[in-house]
């Protein structure tokens, strides 16, 4: 049976250091049941104490995924995403009540992934990047964003079912506002554009789901990676190049994501390339041998 492993990393960006504000990105990962999971969340910089929101969302999402993996009910496509969404909604309400948090404190994106021998899925609510490093060296990547850098946050659903957000986006639930930009990097050819999708407002609020099957897990995928939009804001480095650099793992044991990210950021800093924004990444690895 395929073995899975996972690790994650997050760090404060230069802009937050300069302004004396906390890191609002957060990430978690682990193994559960027959598979592994990865979660990250990016708090809204113009919200309140969204470092708290990012953590609440991450832990609630992780708990829901872990439970489903241990039950053997994941991956479950849209149904699985809805189950996690319900857990997020409940956690947001409970955290606000217990810690007297303001709704603005809970504004944070949430990206998560899980993988089992039967397949897996990636779910994106908000913005950021998902990437798949394949065994033949190719890297497929999808970047998600919203107009005017105003992403959907799961907390909106907990507030009013997302009505105010939908109204702010024009109110047309079929309007194509949630953009997915796909690229593939082939070592011998470089970056190839693989298309762009304009998902509807309704689809964006529900979150983008990418499913992959047992055959992909068995034969094709090495790593499934999630990045916050901080990966798009590294001085002098494009987001696609940054993703490649952060996925250039040397060894796979233990803190493999932290080692790679810390070295890449340290090497980048020596060339003047520093993360402007907070950055988070969470990665699931699929062991090459059964």
């Amino acid at each position: 049976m395929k073995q899975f492993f996972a690790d994650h990393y997050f760090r404060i960006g230069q802009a937050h250091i300069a302004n004396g504000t906390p890191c609002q990105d957060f990430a978690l990962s682990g193994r559960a049941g027959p598979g592994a999971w990865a979660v990250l969340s990016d708090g809204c910089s113009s919200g309140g104490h969204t470092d708290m929101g990012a953590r609440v969302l991450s832990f609630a999402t992780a708990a829901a995924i872990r439970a489903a993996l241990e039950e053997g009910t994941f991956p479950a496509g849209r149904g699985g995403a809805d189950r996690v969404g319900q857990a997020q909604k409940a956690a947001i309400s409970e955290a606000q009540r217990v810690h007297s948090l303001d709704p603005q404190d809970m504004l944070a994106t949430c990206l998560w992934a899980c993988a089992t021998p039967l397949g897996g899925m990636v779910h994106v609510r908000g913005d950021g990047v998902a990437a798949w490093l394949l065994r033949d060296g190719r890297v497929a990547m999808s970047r998600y964003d919203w107009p005017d850098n105003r992403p959907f946050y799961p907390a909106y659903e907990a507030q009013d079912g997302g009505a105010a957000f939908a109204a702010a986006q024009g109110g047309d639930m079929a309007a194509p506002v949630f953009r997915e930009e796909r690229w593939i990097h082939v070592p011998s050819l470089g970056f190839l554009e693989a298309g762009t999708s304009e998902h509807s407002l309704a689809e964006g609020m529900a979150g983008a789901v990418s499913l992959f099957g047992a055959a992909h897990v068995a034969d094709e995928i090495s790593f499934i990676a999630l990045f916050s939009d901080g990966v798009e804001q590294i001085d002098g480095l494009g987001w696609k190049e940054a993703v490649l650099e952060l996925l250039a793992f040397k060894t796979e044991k233990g803190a493999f994501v932290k080692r790679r990210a810390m070295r890449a950021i340290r090497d980048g800093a020596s060339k003047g390339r520093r993360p402007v924004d907070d950055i988070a990444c969470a990665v699931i690895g699929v062991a090459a041998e059964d």
Partner: protein
Amino acid sequence: MPRLNDNDDLQTFQIGGNFNFQGARIANLGATEYTLVTIAVDVSGSVAGFKKELRQSLVTAVDACRKSPRSDNILLRVVTFPKFMNTGVEEMHGFKPLSDVDPAAYPDLNVGGGTPLCDACYSAIGAINSYGEQLSDQDFGVNGIAFIITDGGENTSKATMKMVRDEAQRSVSGEILESMITVLVGINASALNKELERFRREAGLTQYIDAGDATPKKLAKLADFVSQSVSSQSQALGTGGPSRNIAAVI
């Protein structure tokens, strides 16, 4: 002397000049950064009178390192010199996570022969350089600290002073290790202070410390010095420089 590292988790690496060492397989290491520590202990014939106390000092030092809050980020190698009645060094164990080290199982010290001090320094520093370079290539943050504990001056080495000096310079160039500290410790060697200080200077080592007579009290202080220095250097990892808290006296 039996080797304590004959298992599949270790692999053999080369330094140069027929010197080699063992270290944990890099693919099996999970932390983000490591401090590489080598303790080289003189077992020449002249330590016969206090070999039990010297072993106990080593055991105490390693045991204290295991209790350090940084113990998960320390890889320890212990060597003795000379190889039994000969030149060179004998590896008690290669670079291993402290959790895999059982100092209580360290064997009695087999004493005899001369003092191949250059061999000990070359092996101690060269192994940290070589292993550190491979760890750094695999994205690990790495610094190092080496203790060469002796009761006498150089007399039987195969390695030359130039070989030691070159490795010592490489270790502090900043190209391999974030920082490196090399400490030559004289025990029962007060009469040789000038000679050992000259050796330190010519070899390019960081520091020479006279630990005094080989009394149980002094050897206990030596153990404390070693463990405190290891902990301090490990805490300096990530700061870009060496620890500034290594004591000047024992």
